[in-house]
């Protein structure tokens, strides 16, 4: 066991895997990261989808990355730069109306909505701050009654209590309910309500009326104090590269085109991995950046207790998010939109009912005929992504369920048409500007990035799969039932969204000797 060349193997060079590798390497461990793909970052990737046109392959706006982590890993020194920060959000229903959200300011809404929005933002920021404190570290254990856990839980209770009577009551009231009911009682403007609902449902198999979408909203706004909605210079792949550089600077080695096909066990303990070419690498510690289901497929059900396999099987990770990429021969026009706002975060949605209606189709295995979209034209701020004078449009589009009744080869064309139809409504004539188009569906994300179910967050961000229950009991403290095997990906607390905290928390748990409960 001890003659292994490495102390730890990290399966997957996603940003969490790299963060984990960096912290493990800093502690003096010899760490090797094994990545199946050709570049670091996992879903934080930049992709050339047409000659000379590049775009962030999955998430295209960075709004959650922990500022603490940026500083700690010196990501800016390792190449992370922003092409734009604190982007405005513009809601475009496609009928000439619009609403602009710029920080706490609204343009296009009533004075009472403006006041209510400022109050809403204040509260949400306070709640996110409390939540953030518990995302920046492994969640304390509830049942073992260890001193430091009791201390942290007491602090959580204290943080909630010291919100003050009004804010605490409001948190307890709305914490587990749906975003629809909350914004419906606070605001008048349908575009504002739609925009806030979208923040709660993007990336999730949920609609505005789904329970605990308020929690999903809070999760998305964990790090609002950071760069706001930001565009990474060079696309999201540059973020992956910065994490890789940070990991290597800490002493970790990274190998690409190394697909792990099995996590090897010896005497029921993790002992290394086997690669696609049949070669094996031994190490006493294996840390998986892969999602929960993929990780335990690599272990094999026969090496796990059946009840645990059932929990992994039941972990909700059905992707509904597709990604539309367009290469455009010029900047599209959006009637009513100030041309200087074309580089903003554009939301194609009109009402909460419209979003709920779009979600209804996903429940029954169909794509939404009227998808909702979060659109970004990064080339407004970053000319490195397209040839001169040309632009790329990147849109996160929902709902496109992983399991499609009609099957994906047929569904792809239809969903692409639905997305282009919706775009045409908010930007008439855009269709004629399209040089090349690409739609990445949940099965594509599964195939390209190895995420089972194609879920960007590796699994739903919902209260039953969050905090001390993420991803599932038995693997909720980064340690797993297999001694020596740890998780560090978005499946673990605090989850996905390009936070980077899961990787750091995992390293902390490993270094403090956590085992599965």
């Amino acid at each position: 066991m001890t003659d292994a060349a490495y102390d730890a193997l990290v399966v997957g060079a996603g940003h969490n895997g790299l963060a984990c590798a960096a912290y493990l390497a800093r502690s003096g461990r010899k760490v090797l990261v094994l990545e199946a793909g050709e570049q670091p970052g996992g879903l934080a990737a930049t992709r050339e989808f047409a000659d000379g046109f590049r775009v962030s392959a999955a998430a295209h706006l960075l709004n959650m990355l922990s500022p603490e982590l940026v500083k700690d890993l010196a990501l800016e020194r390792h190449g992370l730069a922003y092409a734009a920060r604190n982007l405005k959000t513009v809601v475009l229903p496609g009928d000439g109306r619009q609403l602009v959200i710029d920080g706490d300011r609204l343009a296009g809404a009533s004075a009472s909505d403006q006041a209510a929005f400022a109050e809403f933002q204040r509260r949400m920021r306070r709640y996110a701050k409390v939540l953030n404190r518990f995302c920046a570290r492994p969640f304390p254990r509830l049942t073992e009654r260890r001193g430091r856990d009791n201390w942290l839980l007491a602090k959580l209770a204290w943080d909630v209590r010291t919100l003050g009577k009004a804010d605490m009551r409001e948190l307890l009231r709305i914490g587990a309910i749906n975003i629809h009911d909350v914004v419906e009682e606070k605001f008048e403007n349908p575009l504002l309500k739609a925009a806030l609902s979208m923040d709660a449902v993007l990336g999730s198999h949920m609609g505005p009326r789904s329970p605990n979408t308020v929690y999903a909203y809070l999760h998305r706004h964990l790090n609002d104090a950071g760069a706001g909605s930001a565009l990474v210079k060079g696309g999201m792949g540059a973020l992956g590269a910065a994490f890789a550089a940070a990991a290597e600077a800490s002493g970790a080695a990274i190998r690409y085109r190394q697909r792990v096909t099995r996590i090897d066990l010896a005497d029921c303990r993790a002992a290394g991995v086997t690669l696609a070419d049949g070669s094996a690498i031994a190490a006493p510690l294996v840390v998986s950046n892969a999602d929960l289901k993929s990780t335990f497929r690599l272990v094999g059900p026969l090496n796990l207790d059946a009840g645990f396999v059932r929990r992994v099987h039941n972990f909700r990770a059905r992707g509904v998010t597709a990604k539309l990429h367009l290469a455009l021969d010029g900047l599209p026009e959006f009637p009513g939109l100030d041309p200087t706002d074309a580089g903003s975060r554009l939301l194609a949605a009109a009402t909460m009912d419209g979003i709920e209606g779009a979600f209804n189709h996903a429940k029954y295995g169909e794509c939404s005929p009227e998808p909702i979209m979060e659109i970004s034209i990064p080339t407004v701020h970053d000319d490195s992504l397209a040839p001169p004078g040309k632009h790329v449009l990147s849109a996160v589009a929902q709902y496109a369920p992983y399991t499609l009744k009609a099957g994906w080869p047929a569904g792809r064309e239809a969903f692409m048409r639905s997305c282009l139809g919706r775009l045409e409504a908010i930007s008439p004539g855009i269709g004629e500007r399209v040089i090349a188009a690409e739609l990445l569906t949940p099965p594509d994300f599964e195939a390209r990035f190895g995420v089972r179910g194609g879920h960007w967050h590796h699994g739903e961000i919902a209260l039953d799969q969050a905090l001390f229950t993420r991803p599932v009991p038995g693997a909720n403290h980064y340690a797993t039932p297999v001694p020596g095997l740890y998780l560090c990906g978005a499946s673990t607390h605090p989850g996905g969204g390009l936070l980077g905290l899961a990787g750091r928390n995992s390293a902390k748990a490993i270094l403090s000797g956590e085992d599965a409960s």
Partner: protein
Amino acid sequence: MTPHDDQMLLDTPFASRVQAACELREWESWKGYASPIAYEDVELEYFAVRNATGVFDLTPMTKYRISGPDAAAFLNRLLTRDVGRIRPGRVGYTVWCNDAGMVLDDGTLFHLSPGDYRLCAQERCLDWLLTSALGLDVTIADETAEVAALAVQGPTSCATLRAMGLDGLEALRPFGLRHYPFDGGELMVSRTGFTGDLGYEVWVAPAHAEALWDALFAAGRDHLIRPMGNAALELARIEAGFIQAGVDFVPAEQVVRHGRARSPFELGLDWLVDFDKGHFSGRSALLKERAQGSRFRFVRLDVEGNKPAAESFILNKRGKTVGHATSAAWCPSAKRNVALASLEMPWGRPEDELYAEIYFSRELRWTRVEARCRIIDGPIWDPPRRRQTPAPDY
């Protein structure tokens, strides 16, 4: 599964014969089937098992057929025993546990032919079997209603079955299987049972059930054959020291209250747990238990006097409750007043002075005794014929 739409209690394929023989008409539900408590007289039925042949309809026993490429691997991960050691044509007694190492049920695994198994269980456990099959290429079918079975138990059981035409049966070793042509179909015999005596279980398709009953009773007339109900079987199994799910332990899936389930170690089944065979459900928890110690000890007690210690508290010499009896009976052949009991650790050591608190009524007067208990080390009823091959002729 057979639907219960038409009748509350289902009939087994032997129902016409069982109903005709059941003079007392005392029935109870066994997993939804009408099952006789006693046919004529519990004592006579019990003594038939010990001195002649008792026949018990065990069709309601839950039976799962398990096959497919991963069947052996599936079973090895499900059960605490090394399934690789149960060769084709052999049967093994086993338990299975949940992740926490708590016993879900006990039963017997029949290795019918290479890669084809039947798991006989007291409880229904299809959900757990399907859970255990996630990610594996294995087929699981509930064949409880598709297989009719009779237990033929007692010293003259072998002679009876041979008289029925099962030539060479005496050569069958304990926990072995044999197939015979019967009534135009096939009959399977296993040398297994729940009485701790020489005995067999006979398995046929339901269409041949009545023919089997008739042939068996015709062949056994001179061997003093007699049908037996649940009460006589209960007496025989306590005398044999066998535990029963739902009586001596609560199956872990049915436990509601924290701490009421039991591990194999806590049921005295250490010998069924094989840590060297690779992973199985509950292994990690059981390793931990082995290292840290169990909470309970399961013991067989010889209770002074002749009053069964049913549902009795077990006390230490200071009168403190240290456990309770789960099953108890005066055992006529062993001539001992036996109780099976679950005791809190560390009680149940050879030097412990233990008492059973027994309440009994004689003509409406209740009496309480504290009867001294001695731990029985080794079997209670274990006649040599149980193991002898060839099986002795009586």
